[in-house]
Each structure stands twice: as C-alpha cells, then as structure tokens.
C-alpha cells in the first residue's frame, strides 16, 4: 500500500517535470528552427514545420559588423566588471566579517537599496558626468556603472562564503605573522575559490543580459550585445534571420554556463539570497 502511494507521487512529479521542461524548451527550439530557415520560409502562413535547415544566417551574422562589435564589447565589459567587482567585494566582505565596523547595519541596508534602485535613476545624471570624465560610451564606464548592482551582490555572496571558513584557520594565520592582506590572499582566497566562481558567473549573466543602463550610457563604440539584438529591427521588414540567429548566439554562452556551472549557480542564488 505504501509502495503504491510512493510511486503515485513520483509519477505525478515526473509528469509535472515533463510539462515544465516542454514549456521551457519549445519556444527556444522554435526560435532555433526559425534561425535555420532560409529567408522566404521564415514567415509563411501556415508556419512550416518541415524544411531544409541552413546555417546561412549564422554565417551572415558575423559579417554584420555591428553585431560582431557588440559581441566583443559585451565580452570586454563583462570581464572588466567582474574583475572590478570581485576584487573590491573581496576586501569589503573580508572587512565586514573580520572587523568590528560601526555602521555595519546601515552599510548593509545601503547595499540592498543600491541593488534595488531602478536603473533609470542613474542614466541621466551619469550621462552628464560621464561625458566630462570620458566614460561615456566606454567599456570601462559601463563596467563601473554596473558596480551599483553587482557590487552589493558580490559582497553578500563572498561574505557568506568567507563565513564558512572556520575562525581557527584565521587565528592560526595571524599567529604565524600574516598581516591582513596576506591572510586574505594566501589563506581565505584558495578556500573560497568555488564561491568566487559562483559569484563571477552570476554577475556575468546579469551584466551580459543588461539593457537599460547600456541604452543610456552607450552610443556606438561600446554597445553591448543586448543593444545589438535590439538593432535588428530594420526599417520595413525586420531581419528575422539575423534576429533569431543573433538571439541564439547571445543565449549560448549563458546556457553553457548554466549547464556546466549549474551547481555553482544554485549555490550562488541561494546564498546570495541569504545576504548575510
């Protein structure tokens, strides 16, 4: 009797899982199919299910200078922003954990608010000052602006990971004569490397997919891939072939992250939510 009940619950679970997986994958598969269709076949009435797949869209899109530039820009911006956020957050998280900071509560509150503020609040003010500093339409400028969102998140995450390191190891290091820098570098850093990876991956995903701030603070030189995709809306007919293949290309790096680093991502999202 108990055995049957156990199976029933498992069966319903698999049914739900199957439905969820189908609902998730079908739109993506459809867009993938659209990207493999030749120009005249993209939009037919009724839609064509069987056709000869062709990779011309994927080849043509790399000839599109705008798209390839935005792809490279995204790689640059993401890399700079991650390096910046991890290095600065590491020190901050370390400080919060190890030292008695008087305004700790207020600081954490500030982190949360900065993280939650609507993007549009930043765009106009930063536009003016960025122009004067030369950060407007520059990779570094965008990477810097993104810190308002990725820095708080990185600080929370890294702090949780640092907290997992037993205090005894820290004490031992100090007794051995290590100063703060050395303790952080030689002792903690190797231990929380998985945590750093998780943080970096989650930051990368957010930055790679960001649009609003990029819309306001770039013009032509440092547009990221999100703007590149948006630009496929042409004048009369949208370049569906370019848009679908561009979308798939934009998704692929992040999906690879998801599949490989799934455990890291899960741990990161859960711990990031705990926010110390």
């Amino acid at each position: 009797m108990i055995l049957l009940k156990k199976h029933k619950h498992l069966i319903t679970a698999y049914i739900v899982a199957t439905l969820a997986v189908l609902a998730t994958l079908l739109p993506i598969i459809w867009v993938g199919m659209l990207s493999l269709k030749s120009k005249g076949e993209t939009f037919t009435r009724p839609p064509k299910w069987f056709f000869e797949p062709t990779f011309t869209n994927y080849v043509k899109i790399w000839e599109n200078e705008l798209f390839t530039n935005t792809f490279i820009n995204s790689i640059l911006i993401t890399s700079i922003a991650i390096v910046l956020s991890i290095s600065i957050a590491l020190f901050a998280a370390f400080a919060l954990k190890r030292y008695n900071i008087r305004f700790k509560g207020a600081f954490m509150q500030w982190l949360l608010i900065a993280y939650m503020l609507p993007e549009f609040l930043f765009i106009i003010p930063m536009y003016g000052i960025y122009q004067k500093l030369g950060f407007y339409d520059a990779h570094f400028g965008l990477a810097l602006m993104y810190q308002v969102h990725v820095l708080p998140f990185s600080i929370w995450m890294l702090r949780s990971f640092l907290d997992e390191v037993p205090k005894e190891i820290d004490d031992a290091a100090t007794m051995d004569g290590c100063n703060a820098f050395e303790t952080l570098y030689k002792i903690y850093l190797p231990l929380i490397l998985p945590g750093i990876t998780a943080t970096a991956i989650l930051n990368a995903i957010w930055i790679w997919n960001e649009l609003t701030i990029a819309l306001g603070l770039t013009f032509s030189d440092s547009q990221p891939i999100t703007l590149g995709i948006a630009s496929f809306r042409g004048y009369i007919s949208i370049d569906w072939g370019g848009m679908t293949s561009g979308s798939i290309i934009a998704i692929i790096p992040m999906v690879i992250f998801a599949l490989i680093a799934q455990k890291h991502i899960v741990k990161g999202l859960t711990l990031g939510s705990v926010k110390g």
Partner: protein
Amino acid sequence: MFKNTTGYFFLLPSIIILGFTSVYPAIYSFILSFYNWNWGVQQDFVGFSNYLFLLGDKEFWIVIKNTFLFAFFACSIEVLLGIILAIYIDRINVGSGLIRSILLIPLMISGIVVSLMSKMMLNKLFGVIPYLMKQIGFSSGFYGTKSSAMWTLIGVDAWWQTAFVFIIILAGLQSIPKEPIEAARIDGVSEWGITRYIRLPMIRSLIFLVILFRSIDTLKIFDLVWGATGGGPGLSTEVVQTYAYRTAYGFLQMSKAMTIIVIFSIIVALLTIFYNRVDQKIR
C-alpha cells in the same frame, strides 16, 4: 583583536564606488526634479510643481496602476508556480540535475531577447502560437489589443522568471533535515500534509526572500515591455521605467522624467526597508 582601521580601509573602495554610482545619481536626480529642464534652453527652478503636476496627472496614475498590476500578478504567479514546481521536483532523484539545468535556461536569456522572441511567436499574422490556437478555436489579441497586452506580458514574464523561484525553493527544500519528515511519515501524515506543515514553514524565510526579489524586479521591469509593446497599445502596458524613458528621450522633458523616477525610487526604497523589517521578525 584586529585593528579596526584596516577594516575601514578595506571597505573604502566599495564606499567610494557605491557612493559615486548610487548616491551621486540619486542626489542629482532629486535636485533636477525641482527644475523644468527640457534638455535645451529652459532651466528654471520650479520648486515642487513637477511633483504636484504628476500627482494630479491621470496619465501618471494609469502608469502606476499598470506597474503595480503587472508586479502583483507576475510575482504571485511566479512564486506560486515556482514553489509548486520545486515541491514536485524535490521528489525526483533520477534526472533531477538535468531537469534543473533545463529549467534554468530561460533565466539565462536577456529580457530584450525574450521580448523579441515572444513578439515573433505571438505575431497575429505570422506567429506560430496564434496559428496553433486558431486550430483549437481559441484566439486572443496577445500584444495587439488593450485588454490582452498586459496579461500577455505577465505570462511571458512568468515563462522567463519562474525558474528563479524554483531553483531557490528547491535548494531550500533539499537542505531541510530529514528526521522530522520521516517521523511524520511514520505517524501516517499525508504527503501534502508533510509539505504544508513541515516543509514550507521550514523554508519560510526563503519564500519571503523570493517574494522580495521578484516583487521589486517586476516593479522595475523595462526591457521586456520596451521590446515587446513599447508601452502600447495606448497606455495599457506603459510602466514606470518605460514612461520615464519616453518622457526623457521622446519628449525631452528631463526634469519631469527625473521627478517620476525619484517618486518611484522612494517607493522602492520604502518597500525594501519594510521588507527588511518584516524579515527580521520572521527570523
């Protein structure tokens, strides 16, 4: 103990960068909202008149209503669906890793791509979904009619972000201690009883957390709306951030746009603080 000055020193870069990227824009926007700057020759001090104007402006309140409506329904659907999914998939051992990876994929896609993909698939003339629906005798205006556009957006956002709730709740469920559950099983409690009285209460702070994150994120929505409907038809899907964008770049009313976003930021900040207080109580 450790010298505290080192701590403050380590904290300094974060403070400087966060100050520059959050405090400076906030103050600047706040000040700008007291002028009538139109990105040109006009720049007079007008005091609170922007605020007074907006608070009496029918259009502004429609936008606020749209934003909160979207946030409420999208967030509720995502939280409920995500929790339900997590409960079921928690039971699965074989293949759960693969299932999790696949369900995570929409989260990896940027809002603009999701909006354009959905626009393609829901296109009245050429989209695959209206076509399939016509076969079973169902039709909807999707993004094209005032009555259906907002619901379509809510549905698309649910497809996109439910995985966020799912992943976190699932991780929470899987880290619950097994003893209470085994004990309840031996006592003959039903599966749903166990879920209701043991599992969910144990992860209530996580549930609270996903509600916080999703509600603020849905309030701030921009790229999904901008890419799919641009705020239309009419004003039916205009939300605060798209409204601010249009006011600034479309009508060049910079100060008015800043007023809108300052009001909205205050609402978001207050909500954040409120959630924090409630969260302390839950713990």
